[in-house]
């Protein structure tokens, strides 16, 4: 029982990370109509900048702003130089341009940091485990869950309750009208893109101590983020949230429990191979299932 709960928490923690990426991706698509394959690169930039900051200052606390600022600046520069020119283009041009950006970012990181993965220590303050009665759970992972939920709440308030959010929502549906009323919509888009980048960078810097920081880390999680966005419904932040939790929970629990369940049914090595295959495919099968029932995702943003 304790084991099940622990894995469920792991699933939620993974889901929250996915949400931070999916939120930026889905906002950029929903509002600007751009598919950004390079979103994973911003995650990588955040992770590397924080890893570098932690190495230079020796403090994880100081590394956090490093990662956020680097990802935000990279995102805004990206919007200003390239993505801005893609709004009016068809999706194929967007895919090609952002694919080119991935190659550039990955190679730039290899030039700057080399191919060896970097490792970041969990900050001593957060390195213990918290006793939750039935079992002890790492404080760091709990912090990720809380930080992610706080981001989700903050994002909801920002979009639904602030002037900036109102402009963003208006800009999504009536771009020309908002512009005619004197709002600098290009600046607004740059800020929004930067916000998505900061969220991606935040996910990247939090992932640093859990995974190794390496080239290509962005693309692996990017594709899962696509699954989240498709399941949740493109352009919907609420959909991204529930989709991310679903994907995080399904992926984690399949990997954790399926081998044991199958091992009870068949002999060891076959069970492991089959469980490995099924759990690797699990979230994609969930996506296929959702598509069969609701082709527009669980929370379609438009009708």
């Amino acid at each position: 029982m304790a084991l099940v709960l622990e894995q469920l928490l792991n699933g939620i923690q993974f889901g929250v990370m996915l949400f931070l990426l999916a939120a930026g991706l889905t906002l950029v698509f929903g509002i600007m109509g751009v598919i950004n394959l390079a979103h994973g690169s911003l995650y990588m930039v955040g992770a590397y900048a924080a890893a570098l900051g932690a190495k230079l200052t020796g403090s994880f606390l100081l590394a956090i702003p490093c990662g956020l600022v680097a990802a935000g600046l990279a995102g805004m520069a990206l919007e200003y130089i390239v993505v801005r020119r893609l709004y009016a283009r068809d999706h194929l041009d967007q895919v090609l341009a952002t694919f080119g950006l991935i190659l550039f970012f990955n190679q730039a990181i290899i030039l700057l940091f080399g191919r060896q993965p970097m490792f970041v220590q969990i900050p001593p303050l957060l390195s213990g485990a918290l006793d939750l009665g039935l079992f002890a759970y790492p404080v760091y992972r709990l912090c990720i869950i809380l930080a992610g939920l706080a981001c989700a709440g903050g994002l909801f308030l920002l979009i639904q309750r602030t002037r900036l959010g109102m402009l963003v929502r208006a800009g999504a549906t009536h771009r020309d009208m908002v512009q005619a009323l004197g709002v600098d919509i290009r600046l607004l888009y740059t800020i929004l893109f930067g916000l998505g980048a900061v969220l991606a960078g935040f996910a990247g810097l939090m992932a640093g101590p859990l995974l190794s920081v390496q080239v290509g880390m962005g693309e692996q999680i990017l594709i899962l983020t696509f699954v989240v966005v498709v399941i949740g419904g493109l352009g919907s932040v609420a959909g991204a949230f529930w989709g991310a939790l679903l994907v995080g929970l399904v992926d984690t629990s399949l990997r954790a429990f399926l081998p044991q369940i199958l091992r009870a049914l068949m002999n060891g090595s076959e069970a492991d191979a089959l469980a490995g295959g099924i759990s690797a495919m699990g979230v994609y099968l969930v996506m296929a299932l959702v598509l069969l029932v609701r082709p527009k995702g669980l929370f379609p943003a438009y009708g």
Partner: protein
Amino acid sequence: MANPRSFPRFKGWLLPGLALACLLALPPVAQALGQPALVTLVTRMMILGLAASALNIALGMGGLISLGHAAFYGIGGYAVGILTTHAAAGAPFLGFIPGSDSLALNLLAALVASGVAAAIIGALALRTSGIQFIMITLAFAQMVFFLFVALKAYGGDDGMSFRRRNGLLDFNMRDDATFFYVSLGVLSLWLALSARLLHSRFGLLLGGIRQSERRMQAIGVNTFAMRWLAFVLSGMGAGLAGALMANLGRFVSPDLMHWTQSGEMLIMVVLGGAGTIFGPVLGAFALIGLETLLASWTEHWQIFLGPLLVLMALTFRGGLARLWRKGDAS
């Protein structure tokens, strides 16, 4: 490409004929120049050109932006790898499918396997359109990738190699020049078929659907079935290319279906000219040539290729195939 403008057709067969003559002459010339590696390089270009041309059926003719064709390419490759190793071991695949080391049979098997995969993935992915379609094809390709990584019996992560290329008639397939001519033959056959397809009733219907799906529905066309058929044909072509590629290197691994492979195929099609017959092949030659050239200068060639792609996407319209026929592009 989802582009409502007319798509270019080659009026003359002069240039393609010339290109074919050059390719036919390449192996002896390369031998005479003391550059035998050139034959293998051009074989690789032709095989990827076949893959790009296959993707073009979905992308250029059908307007379907698939970022998952590497899956079909890889499945074609694995069909060859699995059947060939089973033939060598003498044990049937799945207990009832006998292994084979005949090229003709294995190419057929690759076509069937990739066709079945494309039929299933296409039926699901075509329920969506636009950006979701891009994401879903990418996601399903990733699923297939992980499936083959998990298949430890067939090498898992490391892939598997086999000792000899598949046999065809009495040809000496060990000889790179022979394999070059076989690949050239398959590519020519494929291009002839796709030229027929482009001008067939099916090709015209696809063009119509690309431009206005609602109008085609209104005149009674089952647009879903047409798109699905285009996707399946396109996946089968990619599988055929994968089967040849597996034979070229006598090696298959999940790298064949890495998602960057799908991206490169897209680039080839767009670089060469989506919707044209020879454009994608041209794009494959140009991209592989550029990569080889950049790689000979620096290990970090992608730092140049990346921005080049961005520039291409931002400024370059219509592809290489339009360059020498600007006059009749209307």
